[in-house]
């Protein structure tokens, strides 16, 4: 069979990064081609080239055997459609308008809304969505928005669908539904590029599997059933040892350090983002907070560190009420924070490592005599941290933006941990890191647990939560939809149900 589309020797160079290094990829009609790789492996760049957003520096794209050069409009004319992970939708517009965007049918100079609506309705029915096409996108759930994103490309009859990490924001159940949709698309002889870094999904969905690493294809076109998760993982990171550090859960937690009582938060639009949220974290305990993104995690974190004020409820650290305390007061009271956005919130990228490690403590007598900074001392301190936390890639005085993600994260952890926090809030601490760095971060968090810190781990990665937490809470629409006390014996399916809000306030089944 002839490939429907083929990328040959595609090269794309960005300043300082060779994002795609002579990449080959072929896609056949009616197949799902899974593309796997760690963050920064070059998958997204390759797909942007395929969708005409970037022009390749070298190499060619063959569509039905003919070499083509095109932009986004051209890609759509070739019936190539992209389903983005951060949905490319306009929340203030209706479902209908979002779908016909760029393809609106016109009659007598006006958009033919009637005929478009008819067509959209058939798609909504097909995907079992009982909503009006005039519903605004912002009123939809994430799972529904994902389906709209697929309808958008089917609306112009795409034969090639690029799904960029489509399950990142879905519950396991919603993902399952998506896989069924993919099956029906294949039956219509459409081809799908499925990008993911979740190995289990890749094995389940991909007819063929291609692995990318550091801009290159390291394994091309493994067939379904020919390969195991471990083999893919090895190809992805190119190392034999893929063992991630686990919480051994050897000692029992101590007294309660942080307590939240009946927390409510209403956003600007008056929508409740947190509802009646109460929780306690004890010293020497890692409390994992899970849930599909956008179910109150961000608001909870921001309220804990003092960047948002709760509408109602109270926050206590060691029985001291911090509900109205400023960020600085909270930090003094012992709250440490590892931001999920290390590039803007966690670090000052244009600052030096010295400036970053003392940030927030610069008035400390150790670093300042009240007017001038004691640079000698600071440099000394910084040198010790670089050694203690194994921060690589710089000497004191260099800007931190030159560092890799893993080393950036180590600087943040060093800063927060050296303050000896009573409560450490870690938000997506390993997101985007390679496996070595993930293990360093995990180790640091477990050390904190051992030292008696109350750790709150907010993560979208179920595996990470299940490996590190002593106890887990699952958030759904701003309240706790389930608690997992026996983390060792819970299944992903059970957690998935809690993430979807099913069995609200369900306790974990006993085993």
């Amino acid at each position, binding site marked *: 069979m002839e490939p429907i589309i083929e990328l040959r020797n595609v090269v794309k160079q960005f300043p300082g990064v060779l994002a795609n290094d002579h990449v080959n990829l072929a896609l056949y009609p009616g197949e799902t081609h899974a593309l796997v790789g760690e963050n920064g492996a070059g998958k997204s760049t390759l797909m942007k080239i395929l*969708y005409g*957003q970037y022009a390749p520096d070298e190499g060619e794209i063959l569509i039905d055997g003919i070499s083509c050069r095109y932009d*986004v*409009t051209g*890609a*759509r004319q070739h019936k190539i459609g*992209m389903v*983005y992970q951060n949905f*490319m*939708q*306009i929340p*203030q*517009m209706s479902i209908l*308008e979002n779908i*016909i*965007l*760029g*393809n*609106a049918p*016109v009659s007598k*100079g*006006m*958009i033919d809304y009637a005929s478009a609506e008819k067509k959209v309705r058939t798609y909504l029915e097909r995907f079992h969505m009982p909503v009006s096409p005039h519903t605004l996108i912002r009123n939809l759930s994430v799972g529904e928005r994902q389906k709209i994103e697929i309808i*958008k490309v089917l609306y112009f009859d795409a034969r090639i669908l690029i799904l960029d990490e489509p399950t990142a924001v879905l519950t396991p159940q919603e993902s399952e539904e998506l896989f069924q949709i993919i099956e029906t698309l294949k039956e219509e002889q459409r081809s799908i590029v499925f990008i993911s870094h979740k190995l289990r999904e890749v094995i389940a969905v991909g007819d063929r599997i291609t692995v990318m690493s550091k801009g290159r294809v390291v394994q091309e076109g493994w067939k379904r059933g020919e390969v195991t998760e471990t083999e893919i993982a090895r190809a992805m990171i190119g190392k034999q040892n893929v063992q991630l550090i686990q919480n051994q859960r050897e000692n029992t937690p101590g007294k309660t350090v942080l307590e939240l009582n009946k927390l*409510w938060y*209403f956003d600007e639009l*008056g929508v*409740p983002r947190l*509802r*009646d949220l109460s929780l306690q974290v004890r010293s020497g305990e890692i409390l994992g907070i899970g849930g599909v993104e956008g179910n109150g995690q961000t608001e909870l974190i921001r309220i804990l560190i003092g960047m948002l004020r709760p*509408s*109602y409820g109270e926050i206590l650290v060691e029985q001291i009420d911090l509900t109205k305390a400023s960020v600085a007061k909270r930090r003094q009271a012992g709250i440490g924070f590892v931001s999920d956005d290390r590039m803007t919130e966690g670090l000052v990228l244009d600052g030096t490592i010295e400036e970053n490690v003392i940030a927030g403590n610069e008035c400390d007598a150790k670093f300042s005599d009240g007017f001038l900074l004691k640079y000698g001392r600071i440099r000394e301190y910084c040198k010790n941290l670089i050694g203690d936390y194994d921060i690589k890639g710089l000497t004191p005085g260099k800007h931190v933006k030159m560092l890799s993600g893993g080393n950036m994260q180590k600087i943040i952890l060093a800063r927060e941990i050296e303050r000896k926090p009573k409560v450490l809030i870690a938000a997506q601490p390993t997101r985007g890191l390679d496996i070595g760095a993930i293990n360093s971060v995990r180790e640091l968090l477990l050390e904190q647990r051992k030292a008696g810190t109350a750790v709150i781990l907010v993560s979208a990665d179920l595996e990470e939560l299940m490996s590190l937490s002593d106890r887990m809470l699952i958030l759904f629409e701003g309240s706790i939809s389930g608690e997992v006390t026996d983390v060792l014996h819970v299944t992903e399916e059970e957690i998935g149900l809690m993430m979807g809000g099913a069995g609200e306030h369900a306790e974990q089944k006993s085993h």
Partner: protein
Amino acid sequence: MDIVTILTVAVRHAGPVLLVAMGGLLASRVNIFNLALEGFMLIGAFSSIVGAFYTGNVWLGVLFGVLASTLMIIIYAVFIIELEVQPVVCAISIITLASGLTRYLLNPVFGVSGRYVLSSELAMPVVHMNWLEAIPVAGQILNNHSLLVYFALVLPFVLAFVINKTKYGLDIRAVGMNEEAAVSAGIHVRKVKYSALMINGILCGLGGAELALSVYMFNVGMTNGRGYTALAAITLAGCNPLLSLITCLLFGFAESLVVSLSGVGFSSYLLGMLPYALALVAAVAPQVARRCIHFIKRKKSETEMISEYYRN
């Protein structure tokens, strides 16, 4: 002065502002806050007088004004779209350039400074419609305006139609609301932005021409803040064309009130503030009121939601 005259003058004053406002509205809809409306309007006013002077034809004068302000806005567009200059910075240079250039060119072109008055034959003609006379009050208010004023009054309806019913309008809304999403939907974002700005330029030219040719003269700085007024009007109306029509008419009314009240002995200095004070009140008062009501409503709905939650 009777109220009918005041209202008639109000419509005449609102005309040029309305034209400029509709241009700025399109720019705002593609997410370009065009602070330089004042500058483009001034260029349009000056050039239309120059055009009418050299050609001896008022409509060729209008054309000249439109061409000049469109040319200027193309430069502005290239700077902000291609070179990614901050629109506000670019706007300030356009305004400065427009004010300096028109003041300077007055001398080499007309050999005068300060102002130049054309012969009254080159005044913008007014259209008299006999059938309007039959309608009391409204007929009088709407009669005897120039073609451009009538065009200005119809324009908001045209724009409302284009924005809400046509493909081009959908593209404009998409670009303004989420540029990335528009790109990914295959919309030519740059084309949409350029075209919206071009229309903006044409309308500013028309606004300037109406302002200058209706009194067949150019006065240094004669736009006198009308560009900003237009901007205030569309901002106040949330970039809705029909609401903008109302806010522009309101500004026209305030200005007309100033003219008539100063005629009966009120201090012209104090009255000069009236349109601006009115704009300020109109802009701020509803906001404050809305905020207050919103806050009370929110607290109420929040407590309701919470008590309902605990009841279940």
